[in-house]
């Protein structure tokens, strides 16, 4: 530890890599925090958690009892056992008792990405409400055609303030806070939409996952969806390297074609672009992409339109922070990693056990080490994003876990589930922990009487 600091001081390691080292060490030692407790005001299963995007400090939670609460993750309201356990009570909460409170379960609660002055809740009472954080009053509400499963706001959006809402209804609606009306109605799904995720690379791109098992990509500037992910369209490996030489490309494409799944998709394309086939897969793909978009859009071929990403509903979507990949969880208890560029299934096998099937789950990712945190029934598992191996397992909840939320500023993981608790998983063996360890109380020591 001190050595690393010294090497950073002397310039042997760059500050960035130093912090990355530190962070990755901390992340890999996540464990249930004994020193930080969120006092949950919720009386129902907690469905949604999000740390605000500006400060990384305030945690917003929404629960099935119709309540939403905001916690300060950094400053404790009080402490127990002479400062050993810091208790974080909610800064405020809005529940059924509130005059504008939701009547039924809050399924989703997200921060306004620009600042913490607003947050959005979606509820099973068909309403999406936008709240002023400072006054705890609802400022705008949108009446949806059905239960709201998930709402999302783009973290990048500079030119729009749209809330994407996945509801019971087959149409995804975009609600404009600025005007207080629906700006878009995106139709394409054949069943309710359980998960909605904005792209982290483009403010115009929206990913939605429906109960029909389809994941659709939408460009909100244009009508209709521009891609439907197909689980059978695969690519081996994480991403085909961007190659300049066709010779190498050929090799790769040969490998690819031999890998099976993709052939099926290629064959119809090759009919139209047969001459281009020799140019290399990337260019082929791009052209195919283009031609397909040209040709298929807006109607798309019905065969393509019926592609599914999961057997069963898509319960969770999460775009990686670099925007290149999309993680999806399905009621078929699988996590899939998709290349957003190609729309291919990367065929990565995540060692999940059973996943929750009837409820939307919230995944979380960390950058370095690249981990995916997935609620697997009563535990939360951390998988290596490129390996799919379980690296950490978080046991602590007594009921199934719904959401996990990673706070990258503090390297803390917040999880919550049907047991109404919000648990904090913080890096163990940290400095302050060690310091406390030294003066540890005699109560928790070996006590051999005989």
């Amino acid at each position: 530890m001190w050595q690393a600091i010294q090497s950073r001081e002397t310039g042997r390691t760059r500050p960035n890599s130093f912090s990355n080292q530190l962070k990755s060490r901390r992340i890999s030692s996540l464990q249930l925090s004994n020193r930080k407790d969120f006092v949950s005001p919720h009386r129902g299963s907690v469905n949604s958690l999000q740390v605000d995007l500006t400060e990384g400090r305030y945690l917003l939670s929404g629960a099935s009892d119709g309540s939403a609460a905001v916690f300060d993750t950094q400053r404790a309201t009080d402490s127990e056992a002479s400062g050993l356990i810091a208790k974080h009570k909610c800064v405020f909460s809005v529940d059924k008792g509130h005059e504008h409170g939701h009547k039924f379960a809050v399924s989703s609660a997200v921060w306004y990405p620009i600042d913490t002055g607003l947050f959005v809740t979606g509820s099973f009472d068909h309403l999406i409400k936008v709240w002023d954080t400072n006054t705890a009053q609802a400022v705008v509400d949108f009446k949806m055609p059905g239960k709201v499963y998930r709402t999302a706001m783009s973290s990048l959006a500079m030119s729009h303030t749209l809330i994407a809402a996945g509801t019971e209804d087959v149409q995804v609606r975009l609600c404009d806070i600025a005007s207080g009306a629906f700006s878009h109605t995106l139709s394409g799904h054949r069943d309710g939409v359980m998960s909605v995720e904005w792209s982290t690379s483009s403010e115009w791109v929206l990913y939605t996952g429906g109960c029909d098992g389809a994941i659709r990509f939408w460009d909100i500037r244009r009508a209709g969806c521009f891609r439907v992910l197909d689980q059978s369209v695969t690519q081996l490996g994480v991403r085909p390297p961007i190659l300049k030489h066709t010779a190498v490309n050929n090799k790769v494409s040969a490998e690819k074609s031999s890998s099976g799944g993709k052939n099926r998709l290629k064959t119809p394309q090759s009919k139209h672009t047969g001459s281009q086939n020799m140019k290399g897969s990337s260019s082929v793909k791009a052209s195919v992409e283009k031609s397909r978009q040209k040709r298929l859009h807006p109607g798309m071929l019905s065969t393509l339109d019926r592609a599914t990403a999961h057997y069963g509903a898509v319960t969770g979507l999460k775009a990686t922070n670099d925007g290149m990949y999309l993680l999806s969880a399905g009621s078929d208890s699988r996590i899939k990693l998709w290349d957003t560029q190609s729309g291919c299934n990367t065929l990565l096998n995540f060692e999940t056990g059973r996943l929750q099937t009837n409820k939307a789950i919230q995944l979380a990712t960390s950058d370095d080490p690249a981990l995916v945190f997935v609620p697997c029934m009563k535990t939360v598992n951390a998988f290596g994003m490129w390996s799919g191996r379980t690296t950490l397992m978080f046991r602590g909840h007594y009921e199934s876990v719904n959401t996990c939320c990673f706070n990258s500023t503090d390297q803390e993981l917040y999880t919550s589930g049907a047991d109404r608790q919000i648990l904090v998983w913080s890096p163990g063996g940290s400095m302050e922990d060690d310091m406390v360890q030294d003066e540890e109380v005699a109560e928790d020591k070996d006590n051999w009487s005989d």
Partner: protein
Amino acid sequence: MEVRDDGGGKVIGLIEKATKSSAQEVDPRLLKAIKSTLRYSDSEVRVAAKTLMELMKHKHSQVRLLTLLIIDELFMRSKLFRTLIVEKFDNLLSLSVGFRTSLPLPAPPAVATVLRTKAIEFLEKWNLSFGLHYKEIRLGFDHLKNTLKLKFPDLQANAARRQRERLEREMKTKEILRSKFESLRDGFGVLKGEIEETVKEIKEGLEIVQWRGDDGVPLAILDEEDYEEIRCSHLRQIRMDSLKQSDKVEETSENRVVFDVLREQGKLLMKKHLVSVQEGISLLIKVDVSDNRTRDSMLKELIDIRNDILATEKKCEEAGFVISRIIDTPEKEEDEDEDIWEDDDGKVGTDPVKNVAPLARVQNGEGSSLQSPSAANRSTLESTSNKAPSTKMVRRSGDPLRDKLISEAPIMNWGSQLSSWDSTTEVRANHRGLELESHWGRVDQDAVIPADKIAELNLQASVYREERTEIPPCHAPLKKGALCQRRDLRACPFHGPIVPRDDEGNPIIIEESQNKTSSTTEINQEDVSMDETTSDSDPNQLARKIAKQALKNIREQDKEELRKRAKRAKHAKVKEHNFSVLRDAAMASTSKSAVIDEEFDRVFAERKNKKQTFSLGRRKKTTAKDRISERLLSNRAKGTKPKQMPQGNDDEKYRETSANQW
């Protein structure tokens, strides 16, 4: 900790052996072996934790129970073991408590219940001792308690409650003691004075008595001469006894007064003062006050007083009278007293002692000690019998003030309230000396009934007893010649008001009263009676009386007439009203009224045949005639309304004007 990794595995055998038993407890020797194995080896701890968790999955509650017991033992001791167990704490809980419906506890059910209760108990214990350091324990505890609402024994809260209650009780006791101490301190001087007085009196009395007794001693010595003569061993024995009692004083006619006083004072001393002194001592020992010096000095004084009293008692005993220390049986005392009194009435003759030894009785008067022991015991009786008639008088005249008070005092029934007469102390409600646990819940040991409540409870209700008075018989002469023997208070039903009569049954009161009665009854014969009365003696008075009577009669007649007139007027009114009502009814006679009539009929019919109820619904329908009549009626009402309105307006106007005038 000395870490000595010897591969492990030793503990597995021990644990498996320990969990194979069918007992409710783990074999303590095995447990000890396990503990001593684990104490020095971390790897063994790891192995043990793993093995135990595996064993917890065993599909038999007995194994799980024993495993859980071992886990508890180790959990309370080893930190490493705790950290290992806590990692899969939810697993452990679900296997031991069985709170997941998908994973119920295995058979046998009886052991499963024990397992569950034990697990819950342990969880609470662990949470209490280690909850702060292990979030997992806290979470599990919270989940079971707040989400699943399992019932925990709540050890801590219970203990705290018990502690609090005990403290409260102690505080209360202290308060009571302190208040008692206050009252004792306030009344200490008085008490001391009283006791000293009594002791002094007794001492003086004893001195007097003993001085007299001294006369007896030489007599006893004199008897020594006779000693030789009595050969019979039995008699000798008797004599020896009596000699032993020689220093005891016999009650004689001379010292009777002193004896009485002594006895009374002794009783007072033993019954009241000694008890209060002893109570005071125990109170002072128990009480905890800031003013220790006063307490100590008081305690000292009280002990001195007690010793004094005891010494006095001893002296009294030496002097020959036993002051009964039995406080709780005043009846016995009473009996003794009564014996004395009964002797007065002449039991004397039947007294066997007297019959046996008349000589002794004779000598008794001279203060001789030559008495059989039985006679000595009985001496008081005998002496009282000797002086039988005077005793009562002596007693009575003993204390004039007391006698006076007694003559004034109301007679109370005997009861327990007499013992707490005028006392202002609180009584403990649940104090019965026995430490019994109540079966009906917790008992407040320090509940007190305040003095005023006690007074209220002891409130004497006196039942009014009517004094029995002889009701004089009627004594009116009967046809047979005898007198009426009916006893009525005021009037005989046959002979009218009861008046004093002479032996023949003639009223004793002078004739005129009879006349008067007759005049009141017969108004018409007024004049005649007047004539008659005038002939009687004392004409002036008579005349006045008659005049009065006449006036009265006339007035009554007037009244009667007035009353009759009023009655007639009333009758007329009623008649008028009835007539108007009838007329209205006739005018408004519609089908509704008919319905009423019919209903009457129906009611009558129903009485005959109760099943005819359905006719009611049918008849209630309004007919066309009905409607027309209603409309007519309403029209009429409209017609009358305008007439009434101006009247009201006039009234109002008048009111307004008058209001202005005011």
